[in-house]
C-alpha cells in the first residue's frame, strides 16, 4: 500500500473502488447505482418484491462523513422492498442481494435525495455511500394479521391496483395440502369472487396487485373457505390454502368522486340487491363489501336535491341496518353497534336499528345498555314480542352476571385474605389497618384490582 492510499479515509477508498470496479445495477445502465459485494451471502435466495426485509447499514457522504447507521441505533432497519418506501438506489440494490450478503453501494443523487436533499443531514445533489448487510426477509403480510401472505414472483406494471368493484381477468391455481383443486382463467368483479368459487382472500389480495403481477398467496382459513369449507372442491373446514395468481388485466370501478349523484343512486340500488343476495346465502363478508359501497358513495354526498336526498337517506339507512346485521353474524359486535348508531342518526326511532343495537350490546355483555335499546323498541312498537323477551333475557343475564361477579369476588377476597394472612404472619396487623384507612378515603389501592 502506498503512503498516499494510507492517508485516505476508508470511505474514500471504498468510494473510489466502487467507481472503478463497481457493477452498474441500474436497469437504465446509467451508473446511478454501483455495487461491490464485500461478503457473499450464505444462501442463494434473494428477497422478492414486497418482502419485508431486515438490514443493517451505514451511510456516508462523499466527504466521508457518516450521516446514519442502523448499528448506532442498535436495531435492524426494516422496510418493504420495491415499494418506493426507501430511496431508489436501495430498492434496486437490496433486491440484488442474497441473504447474509454485505455489499457497498454508491448512489448518485438521482437515485437518492436529488436536488431537494433531505434536511437536515443530506445536502442538495449529494452522492451517497452505503454499506448494507441483508440479515433476513420474509413474505409480505398483506393485512398485518397473518391472514394473507404474499410473495411476488413477477412484478406487475405501474402502480395502480384494482379497487373494490373493479373488473379483473386473472389466471389462478388453488392448492390445498399440496394438491391442486382449482385451475382456471376467470373474469369477475372484485368483491364478488364468491360467484366463481373464489375465496374472499383473493378479492382482498387483488386490491393490492398490479397489472401483470404473478404471485403466490398463502391464505389462512379466515380468508379461505372458513368453517364451511368447500365441498365442491373437497375442502374441509378451516383449511389453509395456497393460490398462485396472475392478474392479467383489470378495469377500475369508478371512484366515488368520479360519479355524479344520479349514477351513485342508480348503482346503490344494484349493489343493495347484490348485497342482499350474498346475505341470504350466508356470505356475510361479501355482503359487507356491497353494502359498504353504498356508504362510501352516499355518506358524504352533499348538494342533493330534496328528492335525491330522500332516496340517498333511504339507501344509507338500509345499508347501515344490513351492515349491522352482517356484523352481528360475523360476531363483530362493536362494528355492528357503530352501524346501528349511524342508522339511528338517520332515523332515531328505527325499530330494526334499535333492536340490532340491543342484540349487539347484549352479546358484548352490556346488559343495561341493551335493555335500554329493547325498551326503546317497545316504545316505538309495543307489539314487538321479540324485544319483550330480549328484555327479560337482559334482566336474567344481569342477575347471573352479578351473581357470578359476587361469587368470583367472594372467592377472590377469601383468597387474598388467606394469602395476606400468610404474608403478614411476620408483619404487623397495623399495616393492614393503615391500608384499609387509605381505602376508605376513596383511593383506589393498587392491590384491589
Amino acid at each position, binding site marked *: 500500500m502506498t503512503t498516499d492510499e494510507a492517508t485516505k479515509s476508508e470511505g474514500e477508498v471504498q468510494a473510489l473502488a466502487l467507481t472503478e470496479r463497481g457493477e452498474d445495477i441500474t436497469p437504465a445502465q446509467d451508473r446511478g447505482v454501483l455495487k461491490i459485494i464485500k461478503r457473499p451471502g450464505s444462501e442463494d435466495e434473494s428477497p422478492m418484491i414486497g418482502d419485508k426485509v431486515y438490514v443493517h*447499514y451505514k*451511510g456516508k457522504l462523499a466527504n466521508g462523513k457518516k*450521516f*446514519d447507521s*442502523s448499528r*448506532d*441505533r442498535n*436495531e435492524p*432497519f*426494516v*422496510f*418493504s422492498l420495491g415499494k*418506493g*418506501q*426507501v*430511496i*431508489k438506489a*436501495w430498492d434496486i440494490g437490496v433486491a440484488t442481494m442474497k441473504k447474509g450478503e454485505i455489499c457497498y453501494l454508491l448512489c448518485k443523487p438521482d437515485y437518492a*435525495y*436529488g*436536488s*431537494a436533499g*433531505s*434536511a*437536515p*443531514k*443530506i445536502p442538495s445533489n449529494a452522492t451517497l455511500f*452505503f454499506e448494507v448487510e441483508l440479515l433476513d426477509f420474509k413474505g409480505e*403480510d*398483506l*393485512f*398485518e394479521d397473518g391472514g394473507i401472505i404474499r410473495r411476488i414472483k413477477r412484478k406487475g406494471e*405501474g*402502480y*395502480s391496483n384494482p379497487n*373494490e368493484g373493479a373488473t379483473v381477468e386473472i389466471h389462478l391455481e388453488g392448492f390445498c395440502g399440496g394438491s391442486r383443486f382449482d385451475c382456471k382463467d376467470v373474469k369477475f368483479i372484485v368483491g364478488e369472487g364468491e360467484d366463481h368459487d373464489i375465496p374472499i382472500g383473493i378479492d382482498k389480495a387483488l*386490491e*393490492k396487485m398490479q397489472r401483470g403481477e404473478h404471485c403466490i398467496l398463502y391464505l389462512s382459513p379466515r380468508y379461505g373457505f372458513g368453517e364451511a369449507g368447500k365441498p365442491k372442491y373437497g375442502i374441509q373446514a378451516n383449511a389453509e390454502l395456497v393460490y398462485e395468481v396472475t392478474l392479467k388485466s383489470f378495469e377500475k370501478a369508478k*371512484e366515488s*368522486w*368520479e360519479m355524479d349523484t344520479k349514477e351513485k343512486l342508480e348503482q346503490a340500488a344494484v349493489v343493495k340487491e347484490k348485497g342482499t343476495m350474498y346475505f341470504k346465502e350466508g356470505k356475510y363478508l361479501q355482503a359487507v363489501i356491497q353494502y*359498504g359501497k353504498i356508504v*362510501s358513495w352516499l355518506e358524504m354526498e*352533499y*348538494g342533493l336535491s330534496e328528492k335525491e336526498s330522500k332516496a340517498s337517506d333511504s339507501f344509507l339507512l338500509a345499508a347501515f341496518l344490513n351492515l349491522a346485521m352482517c356484523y352481528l353474524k360475523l360476531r363483530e359486535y362493536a*362494528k355492528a353497534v*357503530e352501524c346501528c348508531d349511524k342508522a339511528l342518526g338517520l332515523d332515531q326511532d328505527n325499530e330494526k336499528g334499535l333492536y340490532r343495537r340491543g342484540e349487539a350490546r347484549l352479546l358484548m355483555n352490556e346488559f343495561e345498555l341493551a335493555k335500554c335499546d329493547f325498551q326503546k323498541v317497545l316504545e316505538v312498537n309495543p307489539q314487538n314480542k321479540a324485544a319483550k323477551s330480549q328484555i327479560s333475557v337482559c334482566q336474567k343475564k344481569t342477575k347471573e352476571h352479578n351473581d357470578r361477579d359476587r361469587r368470583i369476588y367472594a372467592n377472590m377476597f377469601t383468597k387474598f385474605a388467606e394469602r395476606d394472612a400468610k404474608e403478614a404472619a411476620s*408483619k*404487623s*396487623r*397495623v*399495616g393492614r*389497618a*393503615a*391500608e384499609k*384507612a*387509605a381505602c376508605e378515603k376513596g*383511593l383506589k*389501592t*393498587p392491590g384491589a384490582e
Partner: protein
Amino acid sequence: MAVDELQAIIQRCQILEEADFKGEDFNLFLVAGQKCLEDGYAAQLLEVIQNEKNKVIIKNMGWNLISPLVRCIFMYKQEDDKREHCLRILDQLAQICNPKELFLGLLEQIEQTSGDQVCQTVMLLLQPLQTVLLKLQNKKAYSVGLSLAMIMNQLTSLPVPYTKQQIQEDKLGLCQCCNAVVDFAKPFVNEVVKNMEKSEYDDMELKEELLKFCMKSLKYPLLAAQLEQLEGIEEHPFRHFATEIIDILWNIRELMPLVVLHHKGKSPCWENQEFADIERKNSADSLACLSYLMFVQHFGIECFPVVFSPAYLLLCNMTHIEVLLKRYSLWDLQDLFESSLLRMEDNSLLHDYLEFRDFINVPQDLVKIMTLCPMEHLRKKSLSILQLFIDKFDTEGKYTLFRCLLKTSNHAGVEGYIIKNIKDQIHLSLTKEYDNMWFTGHHLISLLDLVLSLPEGAETDLLQNSDRIMASLNLLRYLVIKDCESDNQTGVWTTLTKIEQNFLKPLRVGLNMSKAHYEAEIKNKKENRKEAHSSNTVCSVTVSGEKMPAMTTGMQLQVLHSALFTFDLIESVLARVEELIEVKIKAVMDENS
C-alpha cells in the same frame, strides 16, 4: 401542649412491638402530629421523626401526616424556617415510611389539589413520590403509570402559556412543572433501558406506562404549545420538554414504530381505515404532534433513518395532516404539510399516490378551508399549499387532481383557479418537450369537456359562476391563439362544435337573458317600485353570523350595475374568442381554396 401529647403517644408506642400498634394509636398520633404542625412546632416534630428510636413508629404511622404537612407548607412563606422544617419532615417521611401507604398518601394529595395550586403541589411531591416508587416492591409499573396519569390529568386542566411573555412569566408554573415531571420519570426510563439490554426482557408493563405518558404529553401540552424558537429565551421550556419526551421515546425504542411503522400495514382503502382500532384514533393527535416535532422542528431527527424516500415520508405524514386539517389545528400542521412537500422535487410525486385516500382527501379539505374558513390568512395559506401540492405531482397526477377538484369543489372561485392551472399545464406541454400526453390530445379533450361547459346550460347563474366562466373563456382564448388549426396539438379544433354547443351558445343565450333581466330590474328600481320585486332579487345577507342591515335602494342599484358590468366583461371576452375562431377558420379555408 401539642408536643407533649405527641411525646406521650410516642413513648407509649416505643415499648410496643410493631404488630401491636392499634387503630387507636394511629388516630392519636395523627391528631397530635397535626396539632404540632398547626401550632408551629415543626422543628420539634422533625426531631421526633429523626430520632432513631422512633423509626418503627414513623415507618408505620408517618404517612398519616402528609395531608396536614402539605397544608402547612403552603401556609408558610418561602423563607420561613418552619417551612424548611416541614420540607425536611417530608423528606424524612419519604425515606422512612412504608412505601405502599405513603404512595397512596402522596397520590391522594395530588388528586385533591386543583386550580392554581396544581403545579405547586405536584412539584412539591414529585421528589418524595419518586423516592417511594423506587422503593416499591410490587406493582411498581402500575404505580408509576398511575402517578404519571394522575399528574398529567391534573395538569391538563391548566391553560398552556403561548406568548413569549406568558412563557417567561409562567404564572401557574406549568412550564417548570412539565420539565420536573420528565425528571421524575427518568429513573424509570433508565430502568426500562437497562432491562431491554438484558437478553430476556419480559417487563413490558413499565415501558407501556411510559409510552402512555409520552403520548399524553404530546397531546397536552405540546400540541397546544408554541414551539418556535423565541428570541431572548435561551432554554425554551416547551422545546426542552419536547426534546426530553422524544428522548424517552427513543430510549425505550418506541420512536421509530410510532413515526413510521404504524403506517406499514395500512391499506389505502378507507373501509379498513375507518374501522381501524380506536386506540389509533385516540392517539392521532399525539402522533401528528410527534411528526410535527420531528419533521418541522427537527427534534430527534438525528436518530431518524436517512434512507426513506421523500414520497414515503409524505405518505406517512399525510394521515396526520388530514387528521389535523379536520380539527382546524391549522397552523402547525400546514407547516408539517409544507415541510413534507418541500422534501419532494416538483413533478416527482407519482399519480398512484392519489389512490391513497389521504392524498385525495387532503386537497379537498384544503378547498373546504379555502372556501369556508372565516380567517383570511388561513384561506390564503390553504391556497398556497394546494398549489404546492399540485406542483409536486407528475402530469397524470395533476390531471387526476384537477378532475377531482373540478367535480368536488362546488365553488366557482376554486374552479376558476383550477382552470387557470390547467391552462398553465397546457402551456407547459405546448412549449416544452416533455411528457405531454395528459394535457394534449384525447385526455385533454375529456378534461375540456368538464371545463368548457355550463353546469345548468343557459340557465346557469352567470354571476355566481363568473370566476369560472372567465377562466374557461381565457383558457379557450389561449388555446385558439396558441394552437394552430393545422397543428391541432391540443385537439381543441376537433372538438370545436361540441364546445360551441355546450358552452359558447348557452353562454350567449344566458348572457342575453341575464342582461335583460338585470336591466329590467334596474329600471324597476329606478321607477321606485321596489316592494314588489325586492324580495325576488335581494335576499338578506349574513356576514360571520350577523345579519347585515337591509340594503338601500341606492346600494341595490349599485350591486345591479356591478353585475351588469361583469356580464359586459364576459361578453367582451366571449366576443373576442368567437372572433378569433372565425378568423382562424376563415384563414384555413382561404388557404385550402
